[in-house]
């Protein structure tokens, strides 16, 4: 079974992002970039499927700037067999990214596409669902457990009310939630080996994808600051404040 894993290069989750001084966008100059945490979980799941003998080949794919090779090398060090970079200097929207991924799916015919549920930069939570629409495949978003049996995949999904289980025909798209697994760290020998693995590059134009943006960023602002609060001495003072000052309990 061939597995495609989509990984995005994003700001590291520990970075507190600030606007640029002209407030046109966020300031990403010199901030630490990483593989999106949910994509890391997707890669881990693919590697576990290979270790179980279910997956035979894992292809990591990223759409983004040349530097995304770093994140693809991370995926290769974690266990992906080869990688594809769809290289572009534009900031693409999920629809355009999904179209690029669709073109690669057409060429590679994977049986399973693993993705993150959300990229922590735009917090869009869209790309997997949109790729599923474009390919016509079934989708299981927010996955916390997957089981593959022949040409079917059964997925437990994290939903507002609790957990839901769905079964999909393969090929299918699964987006990883936080509890799908705990990703491993790449070992030094594997990082060295990853440098020699195949990494092919193409562009959206090569794939025939129109990436013209539909949504324009007009500017950014900081959210409203909260007023500085106070420290209370004890529970009695806390209860008194909540009853008589904030009036939120009676």
């Amino acid at each position, binding site marked *: 079974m061939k597995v495609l894993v989509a990984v995005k290069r994003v*700001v590291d989750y520990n970075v*507190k992002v600030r606007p640029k001084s002209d407030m046109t966008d966020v300031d990403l100059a010199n901030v630490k970039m990483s593989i999106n945490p949910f994509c890391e979980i997707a890669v881990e799941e693919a590697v576990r499927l290979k270790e179980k003998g279910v997956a035979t080949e894992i292809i990591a794919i990223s759409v983004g700037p040349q530097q995304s090779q770093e994140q693809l090398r991370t995926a290769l060090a974690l266990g992906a067999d080869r990688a594809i970079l769809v290289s572009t200097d534009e900031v693409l929207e999920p629809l355009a990214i999904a179209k690029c991924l669709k073109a690669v799916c057409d060429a590679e015919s994977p049986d399973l596409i693993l993705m993150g549920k959300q990229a922590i930069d735009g917090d869009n939570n869209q790309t997997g669902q949109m790729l599923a629409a474009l390919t016509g495949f079934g989708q299981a978003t927010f996955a916390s457990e997957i089981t593959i049996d022949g040409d079917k995949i059964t997925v437990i999904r994290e939903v507002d009310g*609790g957990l*839901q289980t769905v079964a*999909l025909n393969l090929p299918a798209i699964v987006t990883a939630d936080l509890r799908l697994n705990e990703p491993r760290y790449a070992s030094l020998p594997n990082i060295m080996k990853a440098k020699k693995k195949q990494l092919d590059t193409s562009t959206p134009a090569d794939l025939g994808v129109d990436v013209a943006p539909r949504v324009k960023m007009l500017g950014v602002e900081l959210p409203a600051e909260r007023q500085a609060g106070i420290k209370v001495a004890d529970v009695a003072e806390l209860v008194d404040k909540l009853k008589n000052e*904030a009036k939120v309990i009676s």
Partner: protein
Amino acid sequence: MSTLVIAEHDNSSLNIATLNSVAAAQAIGGDIDILVVGESCQDAAAQAAKVAGINKVLVADNGAYANLLAENVAPLIAEVGASYSHILATSTSMAKNIIPRAAALLDVQPISDISAVISADTFKRPIYAGNVIATVQSSDAIKVMTVRGTAFDAAPADGGSASIEAVASAHNPGISTFVGEEVAVSDRPELTAAEIVISGGRGMGNGENFEMLYSIADKLGAAVGASRAAVDAGFVPNDMQVGQTGKIVAPDLYVAVGISGAIQHLAGMKDSKVIVAINKDEEAPIFSVADYGLVADLFVAIPEFDASL
């Protein structure tokens, strides 16, 4: 201009989340229709028809839509929604799952989680875990969006008398099936709708200790939430997670107990009106957003708090 609001419901009743999207649709302006998709969902449709200011309610009542599988519902939304200028749904797990799929079928770039309407094509939305608010303008002919429930006060649930029309088409490509669900049952209010939320973090130590929070919640009529660390550790189920990648809440009172205050957690609760933090580490970042901070061991403070209610 006309907006199609996708209802959130359980077939027998309309979920209040729907009314947050109706409010966003009112801010956009123009006619508002509601689409109720499900199986045996006539009661929910009847409730939708009572919402003030609704033009008509469209009901797609069909076995194909029984469990709201994205593969079946997205083509319906794309089909019905094609004649509207806006398609809206409140950011529930249902909407997050289906709306982008419907948007792609319409060749539209959807906008997730809008927190304000500036004009018919311009909206605000939080990005980077809410550290920044972006203003974005869509040039798509149809604007397909999810709405951050906490950012729009629910529109009135009654006062209207919209007509109800059946939508006959049933989509079922047959590529997915619903197997089952494990739904948390609780007498406490729903996390995203509660006026008071009390959440526990890793500091709670284990699942049994959450009983202390349930006891307080029952006295206050509160919902109980959790940090990711508490969910990952198996103290409580996933549906209790508050944060960037969990539920977004903005109650009148949010009490964070044994939660450090990582940006991903703050993203889900920092718009609460009053925030209380109880943490034994006075340096914990949660105190930077707390109106009332209590530096204390929760195992002493929480029983005391309970006793004083």
